[in-house]
């Protein structure tokens, strides 16, 4: 039974955590492209990447559930390498739930709002501003000069970026790094006689 539990734990980690890692790592690049408004397919890709990140993150909860079950049967629940692994896993989960997924969602929501055409003329002769109630980007002069941290030039159907995509990229990378460290800890099990 322990072998079954461990197999399920490893299988679940590969099948559920893998996609989250990939989708979260791709998200900033496609988010940038979609917000710049060049290709309308980019927005669909962004939505899909977010759905994958969110859906598989929820399914990924089976990984610690079966992991703890395995650890209890193996009697290693109090081993240092496992306690460290659990701590890092919790950290990764918190990063995902509190930083990565909400930031992704803000981008998806921003894409759903009508785009602001840069420099377009409105009916009264002024230039298009934040009158359409999109996410609270800072505008100083009423033209589409919203705070852009992604460094792109505004396209004809651009949205201002609601989050710092470079920061999102970094945090998504830290998430991946955390669980990669966990895998190494679980293989090597420092301080235990059973390590590889």
């Amino acid at each position: 039974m322990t072998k079954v539990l461990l197999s399920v734990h490893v299988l679940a980690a590969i099948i559920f955590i893998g996609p989250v890692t990939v989708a979260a790592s791709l998200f900033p690049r496609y988010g940038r492209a979609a917000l710049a408004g060049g290709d309308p397919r980019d927005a669909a890709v962004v939505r899909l990447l977010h759905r994958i990140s969110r859906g598989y993150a929820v399914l990924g909860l089976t990984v610690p559930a079966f992991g703890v079950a395995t650890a209890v049967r193996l009697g290693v629940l109090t081993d240092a390498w496992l306690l460290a692994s659990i701590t890092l896993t919790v950290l990764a989960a918190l990063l995902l739930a509190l930083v990565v997924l909400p930031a992704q969602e803000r981008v998806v929501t921003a894409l759903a709002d009508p785009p602001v055409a840069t420099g377009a003329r409105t009916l009264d002769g002024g230039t298009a501003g934040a009158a359409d109630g999109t996410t609270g980007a800072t505008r100083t002069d009423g033209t589409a000069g919203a705070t852009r941290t992604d460094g792109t030039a505004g396209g004809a159907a651009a949205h201002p970026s609601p989050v710092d995509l470079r920061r999102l990229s970094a945090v998504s990378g830290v998430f991946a790094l955390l669980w990669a460290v966990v895998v190494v800890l679980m293989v090597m099990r420092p301080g235990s006689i059973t390590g590889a």
Partner: protein
Amino acid sequence: MRVNLTALRIAAAVEAGSLAVLMVNRLTVHLPALTSATGPVHGSAYLMVIALVLLAGGTPRSVRLVALVPGIGGYLALRRLYRHWDLADAGSTRNDPRPAPDEGLGGGGRPIG
């Protein structure tokens, strides 16, 4: 984010169902293998119910708190959500009170509130 109703219904069913299996097993044949196999399933479902309710964003606090109840938290949360929507619809001019068709993971469901 909107609540993914299909996922929440499935998670609630697995949460309650696996607990039932565990209890019946314990009270009758008590196969340790069944306990070992079903335990983590129940744990996963419990965590998923909580995650789905929390990730939905904008759920009333009472729904979130009630989802924490072990075993039946999923169904309690669903009940409260339906009641919340019915109350919201009674005071709104929305035309279709029933949730939109579900799209699967991370997709469909009702906007909250």
